[in-house]
């Protein structure tokens, strides 16, 4: 397999035609804060060929004439045109001026690479400012909830931030924060994601046509980059909301050389509700909060070297404490109990950018990631002062977690304007602790019930090339080779990737892609809520990797006024998926997880339509997905295909942001989706009577199939208005938003209940959020 990979790399490299070229390279940044502009377009006005900046704002462009006319552009920035004659390779750093509100309406050419020109398909870049302009649940802007509004991406249940991309599960999303994989991305049981929008620079979603540089997950890549910190001036921004407040500070440590960014967020429901809870709970102390901190240091060593250190730390904590004592007939009874639930991530990365030459750029990353979950219950009862003293103590402690130690090297090699080669290597040492239970009592100690820690190695190598065959035909062809060592078992797969674009005319193109993917981790979940009890587990000698192939075909067109539209069809086939067996429960903590799951297949196919307006007073998009997603397991549903729980036949999302004036911004979101599929019995009937095999007289609850029943369709309208005012010290914003504006009772879960009045059983639907207004005060200085 490795030999095949090396031969393929040689063939890929050999396709490059070498010629005498002049190379212009450098970075594109914002003149306002020195922040790099990711995905900015660099276009040669003579040959009409171009390139885009990479994740570090670096570009390299080769041409065969000395007369040079280059245009640099990026959404929200004034384009820059540079004309000069050059005789040798040149370094050219560009700083683009941000547009003001008025310019933005007029200037239409200020955009990133148009949708129809890129060879890649199935990827969407959502500007952070657009994310921040949208209505938010309880005033908290959530990056992942915005991604749920894109075609091909479905949300799970009400309020949760899980992503189901083209029929995949949340574990099949590779969520990268500054290049480091993040496992649990939820706060507050999934209602908020852990990404603080104030600290982010760029968010990109890839749902098909995966370039070879990405691997390790089947369904999507969500590549999130933190801001680097303002190199020019000290600035801050923040917000005070109903449930949480946040503050971000950034600025230069050494101007134009070293910058920092630190951003923090904390909920304070626990403080606000403390008197109320204490009153209702007889003095008990209970509450819940989450916090997160993002920090980044960025140092430009010289023109060729740059170092970044980024850190994320966050925890969710739920607690309940009670301490009671009373005296009866001279005996003192004491009853102490403490319950705790906590989970959190620590993500740290040290990155070094090095420009080896004007054609070769390198990035080296060392990272450490930790995710921990703990649930404990401690009880201490005592009786003192009577005839016989008594004490009873019990601690039940359940922990799970993952630690990753990773090293990665990525290179961009741009030999000429027709080829853009990326290649790299990575290795991750995983330590999985998939659920360990310890019980300690006064008389007994029970430890390590459940699975033991599992160590494993995951490695990958890739090479890809963006090849411009002609002005109209462009390919991205690549290979991703990855492997996993666990339990003396070595899994490895070569995953070819191909995507292409053929320009039909100057404004429209046809794109296609075929990718294969492999994934070496699984997520054990049975609630779909993104609960912290979900367990990340590696492949083992019994449970193998997940694999998939996906083919897609689409038509893309750019119109005037910053309007783009596309239609994409896809088919995805997955195998090696795991699912809890019939009757399995995550309360079965005494069992090895491998004994609770089934391994099977999945398939998803659909059509996605997307219209987006990026420029002007009014921006937003309309997305529609028509799709079908199914699963098949030998011992579930009698080996017949059944709908995936989040199979959504129709999914519509409409988002609009409108600048009424420079002081008032309006926004709205409307979503509609076919109801989720759940398992619900339709019929009951008499069973046999076989007490000798444990079957007493009774009845059978008959399910037509797994996930046989559709809950009510989901739809919701969110509205928001922001009042912006310039002040002496900066800008302040009042944001008022209404979640679920027309108070739709959307299903959260359904159950069988009993109608006391009628004396009959009934089906009950529980809803979580009715109309939910919120207000947030924002500031920026």
């Amino acid at each position, binding site marked *: 397999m490795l030999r095949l990979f090396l031969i393929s790399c040689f063939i890929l490299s050999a396709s490059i035609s070498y010629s005498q070229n002049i190379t212009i390279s450098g970075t594109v940044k914002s003149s306002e804060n020195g922040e790099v502009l990711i995905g900015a377009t660099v276009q040669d006005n003579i040959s009409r060929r171009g390139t885009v900046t990479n994740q570090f704002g670096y570009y390299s462009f080769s041409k065969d004439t000395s007369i040079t006319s280059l245009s640099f552009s990026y959404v929200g920035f004034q384009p820059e045109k540079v004309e000069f004659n050059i005789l040798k390779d040149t370094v050219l750093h560009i700083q683009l001026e941000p547009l003001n509100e008025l310019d933005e309406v007029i200037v239409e050419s200020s955009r990133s690479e148009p949708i129809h020109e890129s060879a890649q398909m199935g990827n969407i870049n959502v500007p952070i400012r657009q994310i921040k302009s949208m209505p938010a649940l309880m005033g908290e802007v959530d990056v992942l909830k915005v991604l749920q509004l894109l075609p091909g991406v479905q949300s799970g249940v009400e309020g949760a931030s899980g992503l189901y991309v083209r029929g995949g599960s949340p574990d099949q999303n590779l969520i990268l924060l500054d290049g480091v994989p993040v496992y649990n991305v939820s706060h507050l049981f999934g209602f908020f994601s852990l990404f603080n929008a104030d600290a982010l620079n760029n968010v990109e979603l890839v749902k098909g046509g995966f370039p070879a540089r990405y691997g390790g997950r089947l369904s999507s890549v969500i590549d999130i980059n933190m801001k680097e910190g303002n190199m020019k001036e000290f600035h801050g921004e923040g917000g005070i909301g109903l449930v949480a407040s946040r503050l971000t500070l950034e600025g230069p440590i050494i101007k134009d050389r070293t910058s920092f960014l630190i951003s923090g967020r904390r909920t304070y429901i626990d403080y606000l509700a403390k008197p109320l809870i204490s009153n209702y709970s007889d003095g008990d102390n209970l509450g819940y909060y989450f916090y997160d901190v993002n920090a980044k240091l960025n140092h430009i060593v010289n023109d060729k070297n740059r170092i970044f250190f980024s850190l994320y730390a966050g925890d969710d904590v739920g607690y309940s404490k009670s301490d009671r004592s009373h005296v009866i007939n001279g005996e003192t009874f004491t009853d102490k109990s403490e319950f705790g639930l906590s989970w959190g991530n620590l993500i740290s990365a040290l990155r070094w950018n090095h420009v080896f030459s004007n054609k070769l750029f390198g990035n080296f990353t060392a990272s450490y990631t930790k995710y921990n979950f703990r649930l404990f219950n401690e009880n201490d009862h005592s009786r003192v002062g009577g005839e016989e003293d008594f004490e009873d103590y019990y601690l039940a402690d359940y922990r799970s977690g993952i630690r990753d130690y990773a090293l990665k090297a990525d290179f961009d090699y741009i030999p000429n304007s027709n080829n853009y080669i990326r290649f790299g290597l990575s290795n991750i040492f995983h330590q999985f602790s998939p659920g360990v239970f310890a019980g300690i009592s006064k008389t007994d100690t029970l430890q390590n019930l459940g699975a033991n820690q599992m160590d494993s190695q995951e490695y990958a190598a890739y090479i890809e090339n963006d090849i411009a065959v002609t002005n109209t035909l462009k390919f991205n062809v690549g290979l991703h080779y990855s492997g996993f060592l666990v339990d003396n078992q070595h899994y490895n797969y070569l995953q070819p990737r191909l995507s292409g674009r053929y320009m039909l005319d100057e404004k429209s193109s046809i794109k296609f892609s075929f990718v294969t993917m492999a994934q070496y981790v699984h997520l054990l979940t*049975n609630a779909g809520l993104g609960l912290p009890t979900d367990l990340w587990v590696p492949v083992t000698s019994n449970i193998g990797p997940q694999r998939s192939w996906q083919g897609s075909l689409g038509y893309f067109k750019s119109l005037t006024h910053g309007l783009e539209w596309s239609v994409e069809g896809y088919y995805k086939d997955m195998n090696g998926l795991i699912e809890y067996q019939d009757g399995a429960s995550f309360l079965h903590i005494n069992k090895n997880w491998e004994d609770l799951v089934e391994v099977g297949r999945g398939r998803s196919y659909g059509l996605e339509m997307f219209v987006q307006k990026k420029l002007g007073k009014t921006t937003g998009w309309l997305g529609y997905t028509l799709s079908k997603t199914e699963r098949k397991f030998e011992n579930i549903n009698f080996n017949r295909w059944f709908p995936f729980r989040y199979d959504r036949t129709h999914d519509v999302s409409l988002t609009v942001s409108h600048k009424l004036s420079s002081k008032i911004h309006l926004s709205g979101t409307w979503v509609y989706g076919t109801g989720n599929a759940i398992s619900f019995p*339709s019929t009951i009937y008499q069973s046999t009577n076989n007490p000798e095999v444990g079957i007493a007289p009774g009845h059978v609850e008959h399910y037509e199939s797994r996930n046989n029943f559709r809950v009510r369709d989901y739809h919701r309208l969110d509205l928001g208005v922001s009042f912006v005012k310039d002040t002496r010290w900066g800008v302040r914003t009042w944001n008022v938003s209404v979640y679920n504006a027309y108070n739709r009772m959307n299903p959260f879960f359904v159950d069988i209940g009993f109608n006391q009045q009628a004396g009959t059983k009934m089906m009950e639907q529980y809803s979580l959020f009715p109309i939910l207004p919120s207000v947030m005060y924002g500031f920026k200085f």
Partner: protein
Amino acid sequence: MKKIITFAIILLCLFSCQRFFEMELPDKEPRLVVNADLRAGEPVEVFVSQSKHVMEVADFQAVDDAKVELIEDGVRSYELSLIRGEENNDPISYGSDNIEIKPGSEYQLIVSKPGLPTASATVRVPFPVEIDNVNLTTRIIDPSTRATITDFILEFEDPLEENFYEISVYYRGEMDVSWRDDPMVFEELVELEAKNPVYQKEYLIGSTNLIIDDVLFNGRKAQIDFSGVLMPELELEVTITLRSISKEYYDYVHTLALQRFNSQDPFSQPVQVYDNIVDGYGILGASASKKYVLTHFGET
């Protein structure tokens, strides 16, 4: 500012509560429910009732106006007649003493009732498998009470095709006692526990019989180790029954037992109970058994 935040918090508290309301479930037409286990060499008994909507009360009555027909190997047809209870004359089941269920034969059961879809099912009766040997050893597990347990080793030759078995142990013993003229009889179906955890499903714990498949010994000599408690210090006639059961019945028992076992766990995955009745619900199973009788004195 303070007023706004206070107002907003009150609003949040008011609106963030769970709410529920009643939902309509689509109607589900009733169907015939047919439950039968065709046992080679034993009279046929078919239980017929009607299904109900999941929201109805689980109170089932036997259907007394059904036409029940059993067809053997697609040739011979028998019509079964209604059997009523001796005490209250309530309908119980449909049966016939004229039919002899034959191992290896295929039986089709057709049940019809005016106004309901005709239900049908087909099953092939497995061949019985001879027990080669049974080894019993009784040992004391608690010296203070002299409580004993008996270990069984059951041996038989498993035929090549996929097979399923139900194992049961029954004992009978007599003891002369001073206060009775006739001997006191001790007899019981023994609660069995398999030594191999593969056969000892937690949802079947408490059942007397073991239900196993032949995945671990397909086509080879099978040796099944299990244990049970016999009456101690008494000469017993112990009957070990090895019943070859149809796959349909095996799947039905396992899935139904699992559904019952998890019925109170809200976090468990739903369990679909296997059924093989076309246009109806229930199970048509079949079995054929061989017995092995030995005398055992429960003393170590």
